């Protein structure tokens, strides 16, 4: 049973800061009751995208819907239904950890039992500590607890395990998985590949404000070795494009030109490969229309044999 309304749908989002383009026509969907990771290097536009979903920023172009609602115009309706874990801060410096959690609970109609939640998240031993004296990891855990206490349908967690030690990181992962089992949608940003691979049902990879790939972890890594990347651009490639792309990606890669506007890349690929392909497009002055990852399958072989010329 798949709920009809997506948890998040971003459509053609454009966000600029001054003349810097932070998000460049991004579209993506998050299905309900999944863990979806938004992955990308620093400055890729992850946080801006998330903050637009949370209602902090108004889309400059395009649209954003969370549970079918406009995060800015319908904030009163939406905000009780989402939980947000900020990257840092978000509490008075003199407030005690449990006091902050109890306060947030009071703003909700059916909050979780704060003592049970604190125990689960490992705040038990620092409940009376003022916020400014909590360690970085404790502040992270409190931030997560604050996001969950209102029993939200969708939680946005921004770099949830940054600065956590490995054991706590594992516990946090288990917690996020339990959320999904209980029917909560988790949208997380991370720049840890292993975190995304371990947790996510679906991964969206963003680079320079654009979606460069989407897929399940299995689809994106495909044994960690050979995959295919199909690149389609809006206008014909310049001459020598296959050679130049192969140089950019390394000698193990095979690049085939399928037609004037599409290339098929076969070889070892990971998130950095996609970033490289996207960067190469920029250098060549071509605009990617789609960039899809797949397992090299019969159809690809067929296209290789019939449509493209292999280089070398």
């Amino acid at each position, binding site marked *: 049973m798949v709920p009809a309304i997506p948890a998040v749908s971003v459509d053609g989002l454009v966000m600029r800061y001054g003349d810097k383009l932070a998000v460049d026509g991004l579209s993506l969907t998050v299905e309900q009751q999944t863990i979806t990771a938004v992955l990308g290097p620093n400055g890729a536009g992850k946080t801006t995208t998330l903050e637009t979903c949370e209602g902090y920023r108004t889309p400059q172009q395009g649209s954003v819907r969370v549970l079918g609602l406009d995060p800015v115009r319908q904030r009163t309706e939406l905000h009780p239904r989402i939980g947000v874990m900020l990257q840092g801060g978000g509490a*008075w410096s003199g407030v005690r950890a449990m006091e902050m959690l109890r*306060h947030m609970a009071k703003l*909700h*109609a059916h909050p979780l039992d704060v003592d049970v939640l604190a125990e689960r998240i490992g705040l038990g031993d620092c409940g009376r500590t003022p916020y400014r004296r909590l360690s970085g990891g404790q502040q992270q855990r409190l931030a997560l607890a*604050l996001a969950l206490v209102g*029993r939200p349908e969708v939680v946005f967690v921004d770099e949830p395990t940054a600065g956590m030690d490995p054991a706590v990181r594992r516990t946090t992962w288990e917690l996020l998985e339990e959320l999904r089992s209980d*029917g909560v949608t988790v949208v997380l940003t991370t720049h840890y590949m292993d975190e995304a691979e371990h947790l996510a049902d679906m991964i969206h990879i963003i680079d320079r404000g654009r979606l460069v790939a989407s897929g399940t972890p299995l689809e994106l890594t495909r044994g960690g070795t050979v995959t295919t990347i199909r690149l389609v651009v809006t206008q014909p490639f310049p001459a020598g494009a296959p050679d130049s792309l192969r140089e950019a990606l390394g000698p193990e890669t095979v690049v085939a030109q399928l037609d004037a506007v599409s290339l098929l890349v076969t070889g070892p690929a990971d998130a950095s490969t996609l970033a490289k392909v996207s960067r190469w497009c920029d250098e060549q002055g071509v605009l990617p229309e789609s960039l899809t990852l797949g397992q090299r399958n019969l159809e690809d072989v067929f296209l290789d044999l019939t449509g493209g010329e292999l280089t070398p």
Partner: protein
Amino acid sequence: MTGPTTGTFTPMPGAAPLPRMVLAQAGMEARLMLRNGEQLLLAVVIPAIVLVGGVQGADRIGLDFSRPAVDVLTPGVLALAIMSTAFTSLAIATGFERRYGVIKRLGTSPLSRTGLLAGKVGALLLVEVLQVAVISGVGLAMGWSPRVDVVAVLLSLVLGTAAFAGLGLALAGSLRAEATLAAANLVYLLLLAGGAVVLPTSAYGDFGEVVRWLPSGALGNAMRDALLDSAVAWRELAVLVGWAVGGAVLTARTFTWE
């Protein structure tokens, strides 16, 4: 999608009723304000010292009131206390809330901006009730015999709070937290010394005609009228309304939540 379903986190979203949220926010902010040593000093200790010192020293420094010094000074010190809370404490607290991301954090909670503002006003009123109790107690112990017009006192307190809160928020919304801290304290000291808040405008000679238009002078005079002569100072209350509107407009123009 595997894993045990314990149902602990099964979604059950919903906002608490608005009055409950506002009360929670007001209680929280008032607690934090009183827990902070410097703020408590500003809210209760300094006004109490000013009152005791003023009454004891009135004769010595040649302040010649036509009424007993404690009757003249207690209403002024109450005005000072309101100013310290509604302006200085509020500005500093809000400045640091912006800095620490508290306002951002609350921005995605069920508490709306209006609810947050209502909570802040509630916190100010809670702290002010405490201040009025302490300062009145000190005054009464020194022989204060007020002739009270309750409506006039309440109007002065509410309008004075509104005027100073608007200015405090405007300050906190446009400067960095440290600059807000410095500016809010500086303005407090200047108004304490020269703003006709504790001393009546008549004590300032010709300059009194100027300072009575300041929010400090207007609030001080309104309090004195309400507690010395059991009268409503309509002109001073109108001045406070003017400052409240000005402060609100300025805040709406300049305030950023982050």
